[in-house]
């Protein structure tokens, strides 16, 4: 009997850069398959191909042994494959039953008008929710439910649409430990009903608890396929991260200089609790954590993009510093490169030159007007030095590749002498060649006397690039490591003992 779903030889490139090459994946009915891989390994691309959001360049997809293709997500859903995105997507002002049947409301034709059959909808909803172990009134507004219950409503919606394969992307990211246990129960019930579940998670403990099999991707290729019962964590981590650390990262720096940034008991809302660290001239301090650990805010809190802090003290170059606004952070000598380059980094309709000089336009001011000659010289200098591949300084930045856009974002802060540069996810969405260049350039910056704070959810990047490392988990600093620590040690440090709650 053929497996429920089989993907063979899947290939996909973006702008000539291969993201997936010859990837295979199979899942049987009633199986829970973990899909693992470091950031950029190709998980999300593979899942998007499977759910119809992207079209594959090569390979075949077989459903029940029959070749299929999905023109759109709607098409994939019709054929029984549904992606549950990380953020629960429900309509809070509709009832539970309406949410479940929103895609296909049971209706009766009354004089040419489709009238919703409320009772049938209600009964069907109750049946589906009972299957998933949730007993609530289907008439309730979904907005009044807790997050895991909303997630179950979303799953029920998938089942109402006769989904046979459910892809769950980081389903526990927004859940507490107790709620996580509840979700595991739902996953077990899905298995009992013969639904194939593809489970994507960063938490290895979770994966070992709920999944039957583990498929690992690395750099867009298959890197391992394990039966959970026979696999060890170390095997899986090795498959995820590989051993090809050498070459990609420059050697660590020399002796660090004076203290540039000293943070004492930094606290910010519920996101950061009592975080302390020191960062010296010429040093790269890495901060690693998973989604929701506090790494999303640490850099911007320090820079001042989130307003004031709720506790703790900071000194920049021995002078007291209180974060308040980006303008104040800049004045204190801090530069900041945000994670979401498209949303928070580039101004797409401006040219490379205009993007690069935007933070320090006063340098080119001559009376009221800006002196173009000064701008041109400076921009050309950085284009050459950082090897930014662009048709020229007057190219609109949106036509550049991710890596080159990132270099422009970096160059912004090199025009003036900064003391501390904060980088969030510096190589997210950047191809491997450009990554290597960026890493080398970052190291070169430390030699010029800059201190770097690199914040990333890519354990390999932090372990490879940084002189010292902090690990954050639920807003706290849970580990401090020195260069030589492996990515596995970083990931291990984040794992909370989930079993204690179970």
């Amino acid at each position, binding site marked *: 009997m053929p497996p429920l779903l089989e993907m063979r030889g899947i290939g996909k490139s973006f702008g000539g850069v291969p993201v997936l090459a010859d990837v295979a994946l199979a899942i049987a009915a009633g199986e829970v398959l973990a899909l693992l891989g470091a950031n950029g390994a190709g998980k999300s691309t593979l899942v998007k191909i499977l759910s119809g959001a992207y079209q594959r360049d090569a390979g075949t997809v077989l459903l029940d042994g029959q070749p299929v293709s999905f023109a759109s997500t709607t098409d994939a859903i019709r054929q029984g494959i549904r992606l549950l995105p990380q953020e629960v997507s429900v309509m809070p002002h509709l009832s539970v039953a309406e949410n479940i049947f929103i895609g296909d409301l049971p209706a009766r034709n009354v004089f040419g008008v489709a009238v919703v059959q409320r009772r049938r909808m209600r009964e069907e909803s109750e049946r589906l929710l009972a299957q998933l172990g949730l007993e609530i009134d289907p008439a309730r507004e979904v907005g009044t439910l807790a997050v895991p219950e909303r997630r179950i409503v979303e799953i029920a919606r998938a089942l109402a649409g006769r989904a046979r394969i459910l892809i769950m992307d980081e389903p526990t990211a927004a859940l507490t430990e107790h709620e996580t246990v509840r979700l595991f129960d739902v996953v077990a019930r899905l298995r009992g009903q013969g639904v194939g579940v593809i489970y994507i998670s960063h938490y290895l403990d979770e994966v070992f608890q709920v999944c039957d099999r583990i498929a690992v991707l690395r750099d867009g290729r298959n890197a391992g396929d394990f039966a959970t019962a026979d696999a060890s964590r170390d095997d899986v981590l090795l498959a995820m991260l590989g051993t090809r650390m050498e070459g990609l990262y420059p050697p660590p720096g020399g002796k660090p200089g004076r203290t540039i940034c000293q943070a004492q008991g930094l606290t910010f809302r519920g996101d950061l609790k009592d975080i302390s660290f020191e960062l010296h001239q010429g040093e790269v301090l890495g901060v690693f954590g998973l989604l929701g650990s506090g790494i999303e805010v640490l850099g911007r809190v320090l820079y001042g993009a989130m307003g004031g802090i709720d506790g703790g003290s900071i000194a920049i170059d021995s002078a007291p510093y209180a974060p308040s606004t980006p303008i104040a952070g800049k004045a204190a000598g801090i530069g900041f490169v945000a994670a979401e380059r498209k949303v*928070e980094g580039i*101004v797409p309709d*401006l*040219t490379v030159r*205009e993007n690069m000089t*935007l933070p320090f*336009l006063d340098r080119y001011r001559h009376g009221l*007007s*800006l002196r173009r000659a000064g701008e*041109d010289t400076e921009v050309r200098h950085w284009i050459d030095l950082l090897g930014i591949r662009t048709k020229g300084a007057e190219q609109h930045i949106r036509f550049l590749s991710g890596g080159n856009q990132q270099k422009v974002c970096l160059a912004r802060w090199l025009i003036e002498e900064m003391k501390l540069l904060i980088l969030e996810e510096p190589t997210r969405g950047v191809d491997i060649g450009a990554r290597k260049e960026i890493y080398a350039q970052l190291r070169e910056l430390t030699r010029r006397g800059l201190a770097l704070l690199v914040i990333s959810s890519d354990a390999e990047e932090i372990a490879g690039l940084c002189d010292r490392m902090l690990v954050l988990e639920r807003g706290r600093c849970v580990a401090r490591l020195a260069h030589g620590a492996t990515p596995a040690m970083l990931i291990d440090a984040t794992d909370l003992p989930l079993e204690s709650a179970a």
Partner: protein
Amino acid sequence: MSAAIGRGGLRGLLGRSWAGVALLLVFYLAVLLTFSVLSPWFLSFDNMMSIGANMAFIGLMSAAQTPLIIAGGLDLSVAAVAGMAGVIVALLHGNGIDVWFGSVAALLVGALIGAINGLFATKLKLNPLIVTLGMMSVVTGLALVLTGGLTAPLLVPGFNWIGSGRIGTLPVPLLFTVLLYLGLGWTLARTKFGRFVYASGGNAEASRLIGVPVARTLMQLYIFSGVVGAFAGLILAAMLGASAPDAAGQHLLTIIAAVVLGGTSLFGGRGSVWGTALAVLILGTLDNGLTLMDVSSFWQNVARGVVLLLAVSVDQIRTQALGD
């Protein structure tokens, strides 16, 4: 498509959307050509100047609106402010207060209204469409309350000169308008403030994160829009020799249409005052030419709408084809 822009020069000043501006110029010349064939009076100097004078107050408001929309804002209350400015001058004048003092008061009220719009839009982060729509209603209503809806005469020779006077052969309002466009064009292309305008509208969050004062830039533009709206109202009142509370309100759509027709994106980040200037000329010329040809004003509305839809469609097709 703008990779080849040289330093300085006309292209440098036209800046980011020179291709769109060039298209509008062609369009304008086509309109001129058509009417000059159809009507012998059309292409006379006097008629050209009368188009300029008639469109001046709309041109002023469109000019101030352009950088605001580029920066991601919008001011629908601008025409209502213009009406209010005339009312203020006329009321104060009727009570024996000097007309120039009244003018300054009107400009200050314009600034105040702009500042309130700006506060709502930047501090409370309300949608500028809603904020300024509400403000439009408030200001129009107040102007009607203050006057009882009546038109008041405003005949002060010195004051009327700014609306209907001439320097040499050039109408004064046209000169004001040309000066404003030149000033804004230079500011947008050559100054730090201009760069902030494009950055704020192009990506507000990214700009904020690298220390661009996005909220301050928008605030200044809202105040500027209010002041220019009031100034345009003074010009209109001076031109008519009277102040009517609802004199300018009917022109709001033309103002916004001119900015959009001029190639400024309502989503912010793109546009130029040169495009707006040409669009104002095109719309004014169209009205004038159709009037000369005795086309009813009802049909003029239709023609204006058709031109707007046509020009915006052509620009969209051009943008998609060239990936500009």
